[in-house]
């Protein structure tokens, strides 16, 4: 494992599998009566969030605390960042405070990369702009492997706002590395220009793809990132690309429905589908803690020398 976790694009197959296997062990810790490990005692993890994200930040916080690390939450609002401090100055401040790891979310793609070049500790990308969100992809892969027993050879369909989705990008790279075949389904306006260079199939017809899917991953329509009209009306989007009860019925018996959350019920996913037995939405949250524990352990659990 390298010193930072910035992308899944650069994550090797061995390292990805090491994270998943370690997460499997961490998940067992949740079954113990004392769910706290002394492993990272004396280490400091800083959650540096320039964008609001209660669930990801909380997930990292729970993971770090279960490993006995000290956690400092540093959110942009109410800090000197809102007074105009630059990312570099913030980084130097954290460095001076002795942060062993910085978990960074930023609205600018590439911000965690810059941060990694300024701090001595490890940097974990918790979502940067429309670029990557590696721990989300790892927890999704972990969830698939736990439910279906494997990742290699799975047919995974990712539906929705691929253009703005760092979750989609991280998943596409990771799943390609782990041997799954990915199809993205979206209105043409919500696909990036470079999609033909990605290791994916592209389709505009959800009904044709669903019967051949082992996993269907629904993405949230990110209204906050949309400055222009990407589709005529929400109703039309929902009718063509939403996973309603009738569509879920044409999925194979064993197929999973995943969503990184937060869901917009009735928009990209119907309530009944989100609450059905094939939905892994709640599991994904629990698995997120195990995967983030694994990442923190692998980055901070040793002497720091690459072995």
């Amino acid at each position, binding site marked *: *494992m390298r010193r930072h976790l910035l992308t899944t694009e650069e994550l090797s197959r061995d390292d990805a599998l*090491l994270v998943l*296997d*370690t997460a499997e*062990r*961490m998940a*067992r*810790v949740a*079954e*113990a*009566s*004392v*769910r*706290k*490990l*002394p*492993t990272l005692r004396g280490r400091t993890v800083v959650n540096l969030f320039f964008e609001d994200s209660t669930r990801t930040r909380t997930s990292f916080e729970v993971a770090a605390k279960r*490993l006995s690390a000290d956690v400092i939450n540093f959110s942009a609002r109410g800090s000197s960042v809102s007074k105009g401090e630059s990312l570099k100055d913030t980084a130097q401040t954290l460095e001076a405070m002795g942060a062993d790891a910085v978990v960074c979310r930023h609205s600018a793609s590439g911000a965690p990369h810059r941060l990694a070049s300024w701090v001595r500790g490890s940097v974990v990308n918790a979502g940067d702009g429309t670029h990557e969100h590696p721990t989300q992809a790892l927890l999704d892969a972990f969830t698939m492997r736990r439910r279906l027993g494997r990742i290699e050879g799975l047919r995974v369909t990712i539906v929705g706002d691929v253009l703005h989705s760092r979750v989609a990008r991280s998943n596409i790279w990771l799943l390609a590395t782990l041997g799954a075949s990915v199809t993205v389904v979206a209105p043409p306006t919500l696909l990036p220009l470079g999609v033909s260079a990605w290791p994916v199939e592209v389709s505009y017809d959800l009904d044709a793809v669903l019967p051949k899917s082992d996993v269907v991953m629904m993405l949230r329509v990110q209204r906050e990132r949309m400055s222009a009209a990407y589709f005529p009306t929400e109703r039309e989007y929902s009718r063509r690309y939403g996973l309603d009860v009738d569509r879920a019925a044409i999925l194979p018996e064993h197929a999973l429905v995943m969503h990184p959350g937060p869901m917009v019920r009735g928009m990209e996913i119907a309530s009944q589908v989100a609450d059905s037995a094939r939905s892994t939405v709640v599991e994904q949250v629990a698995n997120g803690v195990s995967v983030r524990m694994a990442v923190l*352990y*692998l980055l901070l*659990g*040793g*002497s720091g*020398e*690459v*072995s």
Partner: protein
Amino acid sequence: MAANATGDPVSRRPGVARTVLSADDITRIVSRIAHQILEKTTGGAGVVLLGIPTRGVPLAHRLARRVHAVEGVDLPVGSLDPTMYRDDLRLRGVRPLEVTEIPDGGVDGQVVILVDDVLFSGRTVRAALDALAAYGRPRAVQLAVLVDRGHRELPIRADYVGKNMPTSRRESVAVRLREVDGADGVLILPPAPDPAAAGEPAARDRA
């Protein structure tokens, strides 16, 4: 990164490796310890065997089979990975985690017997005692080891010892078990010629 379970330590090192326990010796030792456990715990009442990975786990299973053959008692068997409780995590690269599998009945009020292959510094056992506390409060904890090679760094002793084996600190003890290594045997490996260059295998750091 998994320096412990891998490779053949003998072939990497010049000098003569001495076989100190044969496959038959190991079988006899397991048999004897099984009897001692039955004697000391009055027929194995409330006993849970927890192997410390890697090689403690197959040893725990062998003890359980032997106990079953002698008295027809089925002892619960599990595994306990002490890695995340070690005190030397920061001294080297990150260690891969092993499986922890606590039997369904849990450990509360039971007599837990920790099983490991080599007892050395005692630090692994210390970590295992902490790990165990996260899963409950046993009535008593005992320790069974195949080989006690001395050089304790902590006030820890074994209740059941297969063989006391005086060694030099610079030597390594390599335990091989069928389930992990394909064959049974215990060897003492001579000191590595250049300790700095030797990617220290398995047994030396196990304890």
